[in-house]
């Protein structure tokens, strides 16, 4: 038995919450994160003082672990402000799994908050510009993803209509989610009629810029079963990093999700065909296509036809981003934690009109940088352990 499979189901998510998704005017980012944390801890039926492991990544507070410890007035045994961009929170779950299993901590709080919409008014980037990219003034991050999309189109014949169908599916899910920031009808023609930002990506191919915070609480399986909520088991967690500048990615049509996914599936002992719901980081429509391919839900190059078939939309064979995703639900800058929140809600059966009946296994996938850091978590209901 591998070390990975020994960790399967040893830890669980026992609390989850969001706060301020969309617009939270007047709040600072740490206030949004702290409120999400309070709600997640209450959801678990625990006390703030129970949290002895803190995991956090904030828009531009590089010592956020210290900030949140002070803010909550606790003295954690482990503080982790590790940054990998929007995938950070899934890597936090991976580290929390290890630390909990090793007995170094008993309760891990993973949290995030951002007021980028009402505070900064634009995407707050934490990436240091490269001296070899910056002089070309790429309109990052969209330029990097547009370059990847151009290559995907060139190699596989992926079309603008197929990209647009990702945004349409996300909107259809968002229309079932009362908390979604962007709602209303959206057609492929509507997407293609929006302003071209960086060819081939239109404005509606790009994620929202919103406020929002989220938090989850993890503990070991033995403690989890005595808490308020039905625990959601962490069956597998893996991450991979291949590059940071888009020009350094060996094949612009293949991300490190191929590697993080393969390892997470191996750890969980399940296959893509068994997954009931997928929540992935759709910063741009090309992400959904690439990640579905890289994670093994369809073959490389077939992502375009797959999403255009309606497979990922409500009523389709593979529900993807059932909250509406970063494209229509909310995107406060580093969206990764929301892929875990929606997976937990689906597996707890709390997703209301968008609930996937009988969902037992969910995959959450985060992306950081410019297709750079990839992190995958596989979650399951108790009887999958």
């Amino acid at each position: 038995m591998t070390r990975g499979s020994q960790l399967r189901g040893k830890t669980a998510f026992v609390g989850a919450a969001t706060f301020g998704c969309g617009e939270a005017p007047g709040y600072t980012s740490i206030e949004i994160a702290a409120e999400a944390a309070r709600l997640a801890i209450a959801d678990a039926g625990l006390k703030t003082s129970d949290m002895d492991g803190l995991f956090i990544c904030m828009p531009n507070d590089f010592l956020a672990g210290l900030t949140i410890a002070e803010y909550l007035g606790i003295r954690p045994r482990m503080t982790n402000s590790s940054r990998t961009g929007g995938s950070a929170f899934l890597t936090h779950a991976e580290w929390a799994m290890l630390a909990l299993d090793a007995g170094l901590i008993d309760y891990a709080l993973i949290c995030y908050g951002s007021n980028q919409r009402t505070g900064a008014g634009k995407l707050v980037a934490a990436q240091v510009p490269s001296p070899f990219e910056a002089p070309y003034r790429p309109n990052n991050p969209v330029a990097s993803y547009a370059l990847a999309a151009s290559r995907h189109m060139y190699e596989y014949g992926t079309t603008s209509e197929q990209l647009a169908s990702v945004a349409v599916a996300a909107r259809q899910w968002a229309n079932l989610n009362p908390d979604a920031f962007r709602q209303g009808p959206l057609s492929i023609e509507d997407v293609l009629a929006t302003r071209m930002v960086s060819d081939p990506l239109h404005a509606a191919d790009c994620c929202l810029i919103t406020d929002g915070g989220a938090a989850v609480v993890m503990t070991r399986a033995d403690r989890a079963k005595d808490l308020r909520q039905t625990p959601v088991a962490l069956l597998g967690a893996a991450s991979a990093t291949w590059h940071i500048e888009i020009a350094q990615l060996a094949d612009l049509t293949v991300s490190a999700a191929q590697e993080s996914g393969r390892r997470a599936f191996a750890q969980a002992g399940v296959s893509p065909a068994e997954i009931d719901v997928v929540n992935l980081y759709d910063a741009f429509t090309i992400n959904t296509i690439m990640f579905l391919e890289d994670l093994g839900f369809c073959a490389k190059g077939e992502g375009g036809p797959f999403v255009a078939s309606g497979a990922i939309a409500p009523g389709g064979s593979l529900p993807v981003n059932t909250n509406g995703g970063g494209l229509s639900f909310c995107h406060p800058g580093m969206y990764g934690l929301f892929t875990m929140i929606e997976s937990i809600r689906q597996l707890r059966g709390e997703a209301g009109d968008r609930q996937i009946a009988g969902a037992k296994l969910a995959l959450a996938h985060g992306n950081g940088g410019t297709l750079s850091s990839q992190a995958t978590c596989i979650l399951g209901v108790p009887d999958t352990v």
Partner: protein
Amino acid sequence: MTQAPPTATYFKSLADGKFMIQRSPSTGEWVFYPRMIAPRTGAVDLEWAEPSGLGTVYATTVKRMKPPAENVNVAIVELDEGPRLMTHVQSMPAEDVFIGLRVRARIVDGPDDGKIVVFEPDSAE
């Protein structure tokens, strides 16, 4: 042997009118961007050499600007020697740049103080 500062050396060469990148004689591999050690191989025998300046567009996008500003091409060019770099393809409409286009390097003034490498269609082909 420890490299002279790679980033500074690169931009100094451009300022002197030469597009120079690193190459490792032991592995035969060309390297971009400039580094203290070669990626993957860890080779430390990096030396500066002038590539052919010829390459092929690997990926391309158009940064759409609000008029009257003109749209700007942003591309990744694969040098014939192997490495890729972010750049602009110029001397043609930004929207007309396509993957597979053969291009040739040119040194121009960058948006800040230094010089940068851009590309234009290689008329010889």
